[in-house]
């Protein structure tokens, strides 16, 4: 069987795996965007307690492997609480907590790259800290953050393959299951790799386009 026949034959299962990969990634990224903004703002907050909480979160996530996080959430938490999570729920929680922590760092970096005088000028006009952040700092920070955030989306998409270890039938797990039946390891992994590669290339091109747009808007 050549690679095209193999692809055609396993097409429905591969598409279903890709669907799980993309939807898990998208939902996780949507939640991570909220987490990243929230914890990113906490990281630069004048309030020590907020900063402390955010640092603990970011450090815990960055200081442990994502595969351990996935095991902890899928096996560890039910073991302690008796509450069973489906693989997809545990997978989404793992991915969004992970991407959220890295995004928080990106948001912090973006905000801190805006010159201090911008906040001072806004506050000197009577704007509150929140209004100054919203109207003056974040719009400038976002432009700086875009490339890193897109990069984070790509990393999260790739990291979703790790969720195969908790039995989530996303794309990688699907590949493994198909190979278990037909032993076409070489061709199958090429197919799976291409199926990751295409959406990632689209994301990369998209980000280059957005970056160009932002550059034009700035000049």
């Amino acid at each position, binding site marked *: 069987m050549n690679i095209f026949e193999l692809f055609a034959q396993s097409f429905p299962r591969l598409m279903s795996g890709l669907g799980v990969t993309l939807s898990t990634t998208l939902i996780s990224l949507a939640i991570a965007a909220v987490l990243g903004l929230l914890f990113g703002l906490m990281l630069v907050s004048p309030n020590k307690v907020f900063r402390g909480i955010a640092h603990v979160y970011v450090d815990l996530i960055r200081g442990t492997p994502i595969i351990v996080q996935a095991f902890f959430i899928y096996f560890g938490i039910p073991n302690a609480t008796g509450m069973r999570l489906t693989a997809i729920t545990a997978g989404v929680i793992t991915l969004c907590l992970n991407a959220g922590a890295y995004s928080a760092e990106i948001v912090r970096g973006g905000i801190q790259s805006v*010159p201090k*005088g*911008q906040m*001072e*000028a*806004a*506050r*000197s*006009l*009577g*704007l*509150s800290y929140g*209004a100054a952040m919203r*109207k*003056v700092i974040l*719009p*400038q920070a976002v*432009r700086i953050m875009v490339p890193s955030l897109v990069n984070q989306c790509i990393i999260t998409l790739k990291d979703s393959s790790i969720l195969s270890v908790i039995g989530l039938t996303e794309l990688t797990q699907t590949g493994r299951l198909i190979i278990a039946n037909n032993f076409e390891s070489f061709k199958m992994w090429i197919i799976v790799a291409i199926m990751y590669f295409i959406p990632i290339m689209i994301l990369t091109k998209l980000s280059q386009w957005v970056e160009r747009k932002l550059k034009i808007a*700035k*000049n």
Partner: protein
Amino acid sequence: MPKIEVKNLSKSFGDNQVLKDIDLSIEEGEVICVIGPSGSGKSTMLRCLNQLEDATGGTIIIDGNEITDPDGDIDLYRRNIGMVFQQFNLFPHMTVRENITLAPVTLKIMNQDEANKVADELLERVGLSEKADAVPAELSGGQQQRVAIARALAMHPDVMLFDEPTSALDPEMVGEVLNVMKQLAEEGMTMVVVTHEMGFAREVADRVIFIDGGYIVEEGTPEEVFKNPQNERTQNFLNMVL
């Protein structure tokens, strides 16, 4: 009642005490120029006046409001105190008009139409009517600083603070900014101006304050301070800059 009343103001950064026991009383409509060597605490004092730096000790009362009161609404007090920075600090992602209208519109003091009208008037006043739709990057330094003055004036402040407003400018642009400030002084604005422009201080200031080492070492009319300085440190400083 004085417009600005500073009593026993002190300010430390860690162990470094930058301001020591500053007393200052400024009447409505007065123009005060603050001079002194680099690192003497001029900017710090000015920034305490709108609490961009919080005072370590002492009180500051502006227009009857104790702005050093930790329970006071500093955002509200700041609406009344405009500030112009050495580096302009215009918002680069907004047009000139948006820079000027941002605060009054966000704070719901005016709607966008009213604010636009105010912006046009202010831009005419600082001689930049044709630049309303430009972004800061398209303007020269002098033009940017005049926009920054217009931006501060849009809140109709009673007091204006200037921190070396012409120090970042090419020499040929200094005059246009000083002229706007002079006009503002003539209209009766209460102004505190940190400056190295001794000519401006001499011509426009009602009072000149010389700061050194965190103290007000000398104060008086420009005539008194420039022609007949009493303190040796003032004399040395003036000998160096004049």
